[in-house]
């Protein structure tokens, strides 16, 4: 552990927010020429540590040293000046300005008191050429993909700080190839002697690129080790402090097939969105929906829930034909939908946990039938307990909860309406491993209670763990169904990857 002196050393950092200790005596060392993964569940204190390192927050106690010299970061600019550059999770650049402006704002080359645009653009081209990126630096940043924007952000941070680079979930919105490009850049920077702090949810990437890992849990240091000396299962144990529920949960495909399938969708489809499909689902079933991004999964959910109107087809519930043209119709039929993008489509961040939970039920009851505050509190309390939503109190605005707990609040909102058919679109995206396991356990419990569930997920193992049947989508069409013991990761993968022509119908 003492092979090289630390470039950036953090000793005994503590930071409290009102009534809650976010960091408690954390030590953290980044050495030159290493990629250091910083892991932890949501709420473990990663973001707080990053904000302390980059001068956004001031620590309550502890020392930060750069090259052995204690430093106090006054703000982000000062942190940059001291050599710590940061690229945040949502790329924080200015899409309305040119690439060159984004690289050099605040430090533009000047001539006669004016910005020398020509020189600035030349420097921008030179800078990006180091990353094998050749583009028109005078055009707006918004014209380029997220991956390019990420590289621009890295180029800026590296150019300005030149010592330590902090990357907060840089790969969250990148595809496989873009991630490779990013990793190549990181390896190049490592070779140049940078200390890189890498935060991610993807454990595979940790093993692919990182040298060392530090794990935080509940604001405390859980452990730090060379990645080569730490098997994955130990890493997960470090993160969770308990064994993973997914791994121990026995697959569900041996469940009895329901006698009748109450919800029947025939020939539903919408041009340029999803090819017509049939879907039957009975109570006590979990249908997993697998497929790549853009294969028509979310489109299916939108049609089922009446967000998009179907061009053709009909729906029967308990044998009676029904018409679903709007989400209101769907809710009236006992449907619920937890959308994919919970930040923009799901939670209402400024409203409290209680208000968010009561929203759908109130909408169902109508304008003039207000839930009394006692009913609301009771309802919220019940679900906070039942789903183990971690919040200091039910009046806390939802935006202050971690991702997993926000997801549970949305689930609670629909469960409050007592739905018969619940659609979950990527319920486990962007939440930590522990909450992940809890959501899966919850899906299983709801299924046991006789609810019909349709779960869309990108994580095949997860689908295998809870589905009684699996529908595979490809190229905007339902391509096939797997049930029983055939539900295995490899079967699903093969079906997703199958050639369009030779595909089983």
């Amino acid at each position, binding site marked *: 552990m003492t092979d090289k002196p630390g470039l950036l050393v953090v000793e005994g950092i503590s930071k409290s927010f009102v009534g809650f200790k976010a960091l408690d005596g954390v030590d953290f060392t980044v050495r030159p020429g290493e990629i250091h993964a910083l892991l932890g569940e949501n709420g473990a204190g990663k973001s707080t540590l990053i904000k302390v390192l980059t001068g956004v927050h001031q620590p309550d106690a502890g020392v930060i040293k750069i090259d052995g010299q204690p430093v106090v970061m006054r703000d*982000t*600019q000062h942190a*940059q000046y001291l050599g710590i550059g*940061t690229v*945040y999770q949502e790329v*924080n*650049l*200015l*899409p*309305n*300005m040119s690439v060159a*402006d*984004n690289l050099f*704002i*605040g430090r*533009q080359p*000047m001539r006669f*008191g*004016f*910005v020398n*645009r020509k020189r600035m653009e030349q420097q921008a081209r030179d800078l990006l050429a180091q990353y094998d990126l050749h583009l028109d630096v005078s*055009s*707006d940043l*918004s014209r380029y*993909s*997220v991956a390019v924007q990420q590289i621009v952000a890295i180029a*800026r941070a590296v150019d*300005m700080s030149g010592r330590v680079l902090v990357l907060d979930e840089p790969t969250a919105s990148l595809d496989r190839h873009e991630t490779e490009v990013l990793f190549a850049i990181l390896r190049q920077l490592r070779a140049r002697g940078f200390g890189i702090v890498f935060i991610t949810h993807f454990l595979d990437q940790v093993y692919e690129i990182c040298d060392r890992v530090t794990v935080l849990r509940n604001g405390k240091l859980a452990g730090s080790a060379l990645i080569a000396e730490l098997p994955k299962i130990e890493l997960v144990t470090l993160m969770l402090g308990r064994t993973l529920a997914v791994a121990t949960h026995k697959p569900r495909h041996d469940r009895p097939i329901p006698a009748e399938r109450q919800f029947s969708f025939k020939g539903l489809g919408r041009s340029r969105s999803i090819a017509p499909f049939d879907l039957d689902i009975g109570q006590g079933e979990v249908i997993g929906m697998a497929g790549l*991004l*853009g294969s028509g999964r979310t489109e299916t959910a939108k049609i089922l829930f009446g967000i998009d109107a179907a061009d053709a087809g009909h729906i029967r519930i308990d044998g009676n034909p029904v018409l679903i043209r709007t989400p209101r119709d769907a809710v009236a039929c006992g449907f619920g939908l937890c959308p994919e993008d919970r930040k923009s489509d799901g939670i209402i961040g400024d409203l409290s946990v209680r208000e968010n939970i009561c929203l759908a039920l109130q909408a169902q009851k109508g304008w003039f039938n207000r839930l009394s505050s006692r009913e609301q509190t009771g309802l919220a309390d019940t679900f906070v307990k039942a789903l183990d939503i971690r919040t200091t109190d039910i009046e806390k605005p939802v935006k202050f909860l971690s991702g997993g707990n926000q997801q549970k609040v949305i689930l609670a909102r629909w469960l409050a309406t007592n739905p018969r058919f619940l659609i979950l679109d990527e319920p486990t995206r962007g939440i930590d491993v522990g909450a992940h396991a809890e959501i899966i356990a919850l899906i299983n419990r709801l299924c046991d209670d006789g609810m019909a569930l349709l779960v869309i997920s990108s994580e095949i193992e997860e689908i295998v763990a809870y589905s009684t049947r699996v529908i595979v989508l490809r190229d905007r069409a339902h391509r096939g169904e797997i049930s029983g013991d055939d539900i295995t990761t490899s079967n699903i993968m093969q079906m997703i990857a199958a050639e369009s022509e030779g595909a089983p119908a």
Partner: protein
Amino acid sequence: MNARLLPLCATLLICLIAYAACVFQFPAMFSTRVAGNLLTDNAFLGIAAVGMTFVILSGGIDLSVGSVIAFTGVLLAVLITHYGVHPLIAFAIALLITTVFGASMGVIIHYLEVPSFIVTLAGMFLARGMCFVMTTDSIPIDHPFYTALQGLFYRLPGGGRLTFIGCLMVLVFLLGIIVAHFSKFGSYIYAVGGNRTSAELMGVPVARTTIGIYAMSGFLSGLAGIVFSLYTSAGYSLAAVGVELDTIAAVVIGGTLLTGGVGYIAGTFIGVIIQGIIQTYIVFDGTLSSWWTKIVVGVLLFSFIALQRILVFLSLKRATATSGG
């Protein structure tokens, strides 16, 4: 072509078509006289609109402009006519007061995190109120220095007059363009308007920039007030009511997004000239009510907001098409 330039080009096209249509009906409008008067008559509006463009580019709004113009006019009239202060000293006092006034609104907007709409609305009432405290009468300004400035013009071929205040407006626009595109301060304004949080994280001095923007708007409103007092030779508390709305209209017609971050000072110039052309047309026609200016400006505003929304939709669509799904 850069989609960013499209609103600007549309504005320029509309301006040229409008002028051509006017000239077609009244050939006399094609003269340096009309051109000179366009600059002179709209000088105060244009100068205030430059300040407003910076404010809107940063994602804010300044409703105090009209009141500050009136305040400056009344202050100058009181100082010069009642107290016998030399106009140059009066100008300096007025500019100092309006700049500090603008800066303090900026301080409140930034540090107390109050929306600029509310703060400048309060500023609007305050400045208008101060006019009435000084005087409720219309005070004429009769000073040899004023007469000299008013008589200062360059005679264009064809009889048009390029007046001092007209030139001053053009100069302010040129300086505005330089500040917007060739100074650090200008890039900070665009940055703050594009995304405040990002700008802050990238090390843009947001506080300094915000205060600077409103100070500049205050200064330019004061300058517009001086020009207005030169133009009317009087100070009156009820003058320039609603000018802030005219400047906002000029800025939006000039292609600047009300959400901030996107726009050009040059566009605002064209926006001001379009309003001037409509007014000139109404004068030439002689039968139309001057309220037709408002109606046409209203229609133009609607079309420009619609155009901007369409452009935003199109660029979003293109972005999703290229990034794939």
